[in-house]
């Protein structure tokens, strides 16, 4: 995990747990907007007694005054997570929410920003307006429970849950999502296996958009209130066929594909633009694809 601190912005301290694709994007965006001192702390995801000691060390490193923003952008496994895997992840979230509440009891404002998953909560729904979640697998159920844990933590200042749809993007070390996999494989002449079919609809969002949005939200000060659940989707679904078409146009070479004859993840998902936050803007898919192609072409593919 990472602790970011600066004297400006009311002495805000940001505790970031989870520095994967989205966590990394939030971190990059924070650093662009905010010149902060950075400290890294170990945080073991498997040993709870070790974590207790690590949390104590993190608390000791925090200043005695000023706003704290805790950010959970972690996740142990994706859609295929088992109940046991999600229970372990939920236990991690519970500990962090408890830690945030303990910090809040010291009389300082503590915000909590939690990353959830629109795909997990609303799997198989089209024209979704982001109402009551209906998860259909352990992954979504786990995310729903984690949101509930945060909803119960009424002693915290601002509580925001971010529900991104199908995230794609790239960092120097990580490539995630169908879009990135297709581009990456096309560059090295590899075959991409698709666990949906040509017509499967998804709402693809670029990880950088999510990073910028969450970073902006972290830096905003504000008073507490009810928990806010924010759907971060583009509001513009795209079929796998279209994604392939756009990438083929951009790459100017045919893509080698293998479609799963019994796809386990072929249900359509889409979100109504009216359900998205007013201050959220998503990069159009062709621009996002162009950006990733340029990035991968300029660096090690």
């Amino acid at each position, binding site marked *: 995990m990472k602790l970011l601190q600066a004297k400006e912005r009311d002495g805000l301290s940001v505790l970031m747990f989870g520095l994967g694709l989205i966590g990394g994007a939030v971190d990059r965006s924070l650093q662009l907007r905010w010149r902060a001192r950075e400290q890294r702390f170990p945080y073991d995801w498997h040993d709870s007694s070790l974590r207790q000691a690590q949390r104590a060390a993190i608390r000791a490193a925090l200043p005695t005054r000023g706003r704290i923003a805790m950010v959970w952008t972690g996740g142990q496994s994706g859609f295929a997570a088992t109940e046991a895997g999600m229970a372990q992840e939920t236990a991690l979230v519970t500990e962090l929410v408890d830690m945030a509440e303990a910090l809040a009891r010291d009389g300082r404002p503590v915000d909590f920003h939690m990353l959830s998953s629109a795909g997990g909560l609303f799997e*198989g729904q*089209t*024209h979704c307006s982001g109402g009551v979640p209906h998860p259909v697998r352990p992954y979504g159920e786990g995310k729903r429970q984690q949101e509930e844990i945060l909803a119960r933590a009424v002693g915290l200042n601002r509580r925001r849950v971010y529900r991104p749809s199908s995230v794609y993007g790239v960092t120097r070390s990580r490539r995630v999502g169908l879009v990135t996999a297709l581009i990456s494989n096309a560059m090295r002449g590899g075959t991409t296996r698709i666990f949906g079919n*040509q*017509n499967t609809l998804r709402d693809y969002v670029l990880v950088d958009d999510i990073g910028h949005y969450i970073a902006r939200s972290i830096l905003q000060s504000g008073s507490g209130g009810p928990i806010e659940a924010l759907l971060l989707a583009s509001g513009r679904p795209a079929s796998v*066929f279209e994604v392939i078409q*756009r990438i083929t146009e951009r790459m100017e070479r045919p893509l080698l594909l293998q479609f799963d004859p019994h796809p386990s993840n072929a249900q359509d998902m*889409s979100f109504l633009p*009216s359900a998205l936050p007013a201050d959220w803007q998503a990069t159009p898919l062709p621009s996002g694809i162009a950006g990733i192609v340029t990035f991968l072409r300029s660096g090690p593919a």
Partner: protein
Amino acid sequence: MSDSPQPQSTTISVVVPVYCGSDYLEALVEALDSLRREWQAQEAPFFLAEAIFVDDAAIDQSGPLIDRLAGQHPWIVPLHLSRNFGQHPATIVGILHSSGDWVVTMDEDLQHRPEIIKRLLRKAVTEHSDIVYAKPASAVHEAAIRDWTSRSFKRLMQWLTDNPNLPDFNSFRLIRGPVARAAASVCSHDTYLDITLGWFTQNISVLRAEMKDERYIRTKRSGYSLKSLLSHGWRMIFSSQIKLLRIGSVLGLSAMVFSVLAAVYFLVIRIFFPLDIAVQGWTSLFLAITFFGGLSAFMLGIALQYLSSMILKVHGKPTFFTIDRSGDVPAAQWLEQHPDPQP
């Protein structure tokens, strides 16, 4: 009453390109809303899930009006194009923002009545069609010359492009969602949407329905000028394999065959009846010109056919496309039990 589709419902997206529709949009939204409520009240297994209004840099107050209507109805999706791109690109944008199992495209001016959507759907699910075009049952413009021009233009284009569905093309259409989105995603600025749709399906039907272009009847002003008609025709031809290319190749080949047969004939004459040839030397020149002219036309035809195939490939003509029509059954069964009232 729930305002969201049942998980198993067939969802329908409506796409409306808007250029000059401020006089009609409120009435259109009202009609769509009442259709939506009617289907919900009837517990139909299909649901009007969204209406996407694409403001194609409208020349009137349609843009702000669309935003206001979207504020009142969460199922309305407002889209604003940065400049005027034309009806087809606006329709394509709308389709690419849709996620319905079926997509209906219709004009802004109530020429296309929303209540016909159910009949289009009935036709589609009972006949396993992927596209149903609404075809005017009578003269749309109630102006003989205007309607004759429209019909003649379509016939000429049908002959040139050899596309049997071309006379049925209409902007009021119901398209299976995956087919609509796939076709829209391969359309470039110069491809014709309906020609592209034909690359993905041959299951195309037609429903005759009463349609009147009230705006034209009232104002005698058409949305189509000669320039836009020619542009339409050009895009149709450019998106298709042109019949003229094949005709050119066949003519070239015929000329070659003719010249070879004529050469044999005149050779026989030259050998066995040399006195019958009154003028010497012209035969070989005539045959050589016919042969090489034919060969040139034939080879050029082949080269152009190759070029045409490559252009179609660049335009995104697919090698294959899969489709699942099994979801039509609940809607088909329900519609069978709920026949349309007789007029």
